[in-house]
Structure formats: structure tokens, C-alpha cells
């Protein structure tokens, strides 16, 4: 049985006069990968930071609720939040070099996570670190523990980040573009590793990416974000087979797929740009770029059901979209 480990209900994030996230809801189930996909500035990374309680000070956060394993995170104080963070929920970032401390060895950074949350001896923490480095398939883990981040390749650093995130056996792993800075061959290795760890440890993963290839190959469920809103949520196969929201459709048409788009033929593209969104913004944020826009797109937009577990935010009914 799969139940939701993380449930975010109508999250709003603002930066001064700008609305970065508007009413975003999402659920990550135990043992599953949920992909949050969208282009730069759509609000996917700040959504993840909000869950971790890591938003910058100038940001405001509001939500109807945000529950982790049934526990309400909204209103939790920093002390309680920092107990969860790194322990039951952990996060990895795009550029491991900026999130690892260059002045400490791999071993001491990894051990610190364990000592801080679980206590015990430094020796036991180092043993656990070595065990996890082996688990993320790093050869000669004993030697790596004594090395500094700059002595490792990009792929190895990302493995170290993953191992460090797993020190306290978290239930939820949030991965923000974990393979974007890596070569394709290394990307495939890291994503495989994450999938294997998920099977072994029953990890729930919230994976943030702009890469539809990564989404297709790793996700169980997907949420597509545009201008701060979740515009479509669906099981992965359904999203790629029957995309509903015009933005999702546009995005899928932009990617060259061997066998579907003939080399040299023009790719699909989305005209125009993302509008500047302020809290009072009304209507569909995609309407200026949408072929199917009509006058009522400036009004309140309903969330519609396309299929079980598949909903989208659009004025246009499923039947008319399928025909379009």
C-alpha cells in the first residue's frame, strides 16, 4: 500500500512584490519518485526549499498545510525543523562542490551528520560513512574518507552528497537537479544508483528537474510547474501519453525525440515569455502564449480531472483539449 509521506496543500511563497509559488499542492508517496518539472523561475526549487524550511529570510511562506508523515510542518520552530532535516528528510543539490565544505575531509563531513542527529562515537560514525560510500558504489571507501572534495570528480562528489544524505536513513530525499551538472554517462549512473537505493531502502524521492528525459525514466508521478503554479499532475505514463495542459503539451513538443521528430524538421516551440507574476495576478499565466486561449482564461481557472490521479489547471474541458 502506498500512502503519502509528504503532503503539501496550497503552498504560497513570495519574495517582496513577486509571487514565486501560488497555491502549489503535491504529494510524495512512500517508496516512490515524484518529479517536479518546469523551466527556470517556475518555482520548483523554492518549493523544495520551503519543505525543508530552508527559504531565504526575505521570503514569505504560507500554506493550508504541509505534512510530513502526518506531522504538520507549518509553524514548527527552527529547532524542531533542524531535528528533522538531515535526519528523516534530506536534500541534495545540483552542484555538489558548493554544498560540500572544501576545508573538511569527506569522512568528517559525513560523520558530523550522524553525530549531530544520533550521537554515538566518532568511530561508529566513520564506519557508517564508509559503509554508505560503498553503498553508493565508491571504490576504496576507506581512502575516500580521508580525501577533500576537490580531489574528487563531479560524479564522485555527487555520490558523496548522496551518501551523506543517507547517513541517518531518511525517509524522504529531496534532489534538486542532481545530475544537471554531470555528463550523460555519469547522469545515467547516478540516476540508476538513486533508483536502486529507492528499492533497497524504500526511499521517497522528490526529484526536481527541467529535463523531460529524466522525468520519463525516473518518475512514478509528475507535477508540472509554470509561473509558480502546479498546472498538471499525473502518473508518468499518463502525462507523456495524454498531456492535457497546453503548457505541458508545448514543453513535450520542444524536445527532439528520435523516431518522432525527423532530423532537420522544426521543433515545436512556445512563443513569448513567462509573465511577471505578482500576488494579485488573475487568470491563467500561460494565456498570452497559448494557442487555445479564450476570453474567460483571464478569469478564475478551475482544476479539472482528466483521469484518476491526473488533474490540470485550465479553463478548457478535457474533451475539447483532446480534440485540439
Amino acid at each position, binding site marked *: 500500500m502506498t500512502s503519502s509521506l509528504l503532503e503539501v496543500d496550497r503552498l504560497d511563497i513570495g519574495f517582496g512584490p513577486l509571487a514565486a509559488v501560488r497555491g502549489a499542492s503535491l504529494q510524495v508517496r512512500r517508496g516512490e519518485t515524484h518529479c517536479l518539472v518546469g523551466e527556470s523561475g517556475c518555482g520548483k526549487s523554492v518549493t523544495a526549499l520551503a519543505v525543508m524550511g530552508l527559504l531565504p529570510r526575505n521570503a514569505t511562506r504560507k500554506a493550508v498545510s504541509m505534512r510530513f508523515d502526518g506531522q504538520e510542518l507549518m509553524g514548527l520552530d527552527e529547532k524542531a525543523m533542524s531535528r528533522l532535516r538531515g535526519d528523516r528528510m534530506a536534500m541534495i543539490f545540483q552542484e555538489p562542490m558548493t554544498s560540500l565544505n572544501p576545508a573538511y575531509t569527506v569522512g568528517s563531513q559525513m560523520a558530523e551528520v550522524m553525530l549531530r542527529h544520533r550521537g554515538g562515537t566518532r568511530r561508529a560514525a566513520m564506519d557508517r560513512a564508509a559503509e554508505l560510500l560503498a553503498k553508493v558504489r565508491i571504490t576504496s571507501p576507506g581512502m575516500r574518507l580521508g580525501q577533500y572534495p576537490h580531489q574528487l570528480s*563531479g560524479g564522485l562528489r555527487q555520490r558523496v552528497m548522496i551518501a551523506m544524505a543517507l547517513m541517518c536513513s531518511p525517509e524522504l530525499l529531496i534532489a534538486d537537479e542532481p545530475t544537471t551538472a554531470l555528463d*550523460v*554517462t555519469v547522469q*545515467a549512473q547516478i540516476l540508476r544508483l538513486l533508483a536502486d537505493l529507492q528499492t533497497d531502502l524504500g526511499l521517497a524521492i522528490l526529484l526536481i528537474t527541467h529535463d523531460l528525459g529524466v522525468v520519463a*525514466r525516473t518518475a512514478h508521478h509528475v507535477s508540472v510547474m509554470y509561473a509558480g503554479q502546479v498546472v498538471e499532475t499525473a502518473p508518468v505514463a499518463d502525462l507523456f501519453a495524454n498531456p492535457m495542459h497546453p503548457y505541458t503539451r508545448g514543453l513535450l513538443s520542444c524536445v527532439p525525440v*528520435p523516431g518522432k521528430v525527423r532530423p532537420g524538421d522544426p*521543433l515545436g516551440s512556445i512563443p513569448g515569455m513567462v509573465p511577471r507574476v505578482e500576488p494579485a495576478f488573475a487568470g491563467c499565466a500561460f494565456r498570452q502564449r497559448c494557442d487555445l486561449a479564450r476570453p474567460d482564461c483571464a478569469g478564475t481557472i478551475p482544476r479539472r480531472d482528466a483521469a484518476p490521479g491526473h488533474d490540470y489547471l485550465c479553463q478548457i474541458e478535457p474533451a475539447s483539449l483532446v480534440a485540439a
Partner: protein
Amino acid sequence: MTAPLIEVRDVGQRFRVSSGLLEKKRQVVAVDGVSLKLMQGDVLGIVGESGCGKSTLARIILGLLPPTTGDVLIDGQDLSKLDRRERARLIQPVFQDPFSSLNPRRLVRDIVALPLHAQGNVTATDMRQRVDTMLERVGLDPAMGDRFPAQLSGGQRQRVAIARALVLRPRIVVCDEPTSALDVSVQAQILNLLAELRREFGLSYLFISHNLAVIEHVATEVAVMYLGRIVERNDTASLFHNPRHPYTKALLASVLTPEPGLGIPETGLGDAMPDPANIPPGCRFHPRCPVAIERCGRDAPTITRDGDGITECHLIATA
């Protein structure tokens, strides 16, 4: 028989780098014995992982970096003998990062006009008109000419970089990861624009990318680089449908096409990362090669020709 527009002959590039204050300088072999040709109207795609030497090769072909060995002919003329103005009329670059490749203190109009300025003897009215025409042609309102790069989006900046590259009507454009810093929807717009401009101006492209789906879409011919050498080269359809070198096969297998249900591929490449400061003996790919035989660690493979394609692998040579 037409002469190639670019001919690179046995080009090599070595750098001496210091890895620390007290450490000895090490030699990095970025490009090693590379030969290739770009024919009029073609798009030669160059793929490979970071550190394989593809950007160094681009800089050599642009004349920005004199190669340690070998030579480059552009339209039959020795690149090292051309002066900057002649070179600029033949070949122009578009780089990856439109945030750092445009001077932030200059107006868009002046950025696009700079190559015309450098050529001299262009009147102010003529220059203004040519800049406006080019801005319009790359899909920018000429009024954008009076803005600064910081006021433009990433896609618009890349259009400015393309306008600057084309304002002298060169014959070749070297595109080094031109869409890697852009969002997918913007990437598609820029790729479509580059394809239109190629048809309209009869351009030839050297197109460097780590994104194989993009390369398959735009290139007519593809060269795969590994640690400074071209290990396989062929026309695009043959290379993608019938890859021969084990590295090409692994690269293609690693591509995550947006098709759900296929899972994550097993590359079989292992953990050994290529290091251009420490090139393995024999075949430089052998420490990662899933099908290496004993000989691969000892002898460097030679080129095997097959139709128009070439492969550098012992297993292909003996097959």
C-alpha cells in the same frame, strides 16, 4: 570535387598546468592528432564528455588558440596566415553562455555592430541599417538595440550573439553548446532559428554539444571525441543507428529520451574517469571499456575506414 570549407590536419594541443604552488607542472593533452573536414553547407556535430577537448578544438578552429602541432585550412587558406579581419569574414563563434559572452556595458546595437566596426570603411547609416536588419532577422525588435544585455532574457541574449556572428555574413559559424544554458522551450526556438539561417545564408556549422538528441537533430555528420581524439566519425544517421565504437555505444545508451517505461540504462562504463593530464597507454578508452581485450591496454588502435565513416578501435579493426 569541391574543397572542404574547413580542413583540420593532425592538430594537437598541449597545455602545461600547475596543480598547486609546490607541485610540478603537469602536461595536459587536450587535443591529440585530430583531423576533420567540414564541407560547404554541412553541419558537423562534435560530441563528447566534459574535458574531451571539444571546446579547445573549437578555439583552435576559430583561430583563438594556435595549435601546438598540425594546421587548419579555412576555405583552402592557412588559418595562421589570415589576419583577424579576413578570419572574421569567414568564421564566427556563438558561445554557450549568453550571460558572459556579451559585454554588459554596451548597448545591444553596439555589440552587434562591433564586427562591422572592426572591418572599418562602413558608414554610420549603413551600419545602423545592417544591424537593424540582422536584429530583425534573428527575431528581435530593432528597438531592442537600445537596451543593455542585462535587460534581455537568456533566449534574447543568444539571439543577439547570433546576430553579432552573422552581421559580417561569414561562411562558417562555430556553435559551442549554443543552447546548453537555455530552457527547453527556448532551446527549441534557437535551434529552429539556426536551421532557418543556415538555409537562408548558405551557412556551414561546426556544432559542439554534449546533448546527443540535439546533435542528432541538427548535424549532418558527427564526430565523437574522447580524451582529445576523434574515436568515431560518420554521417548522422549511420552513427546513431549503427554506432561502432564502444564509447559511442555507451554514450548513445546513456541518453534519456523522454519515453516513460524504458527505465534507466546500464552504461557498463565503471567509475574510472578520464583525465587529460593522465592519458592511459594503449587505447585511451580501455579503462572504462566494457569489451576491452588485453591488447587494448598495450597498443594504440589505428583508424579503420568503412565507407565514409572512421572508427578507432582494435575490436573493429579485427572484426
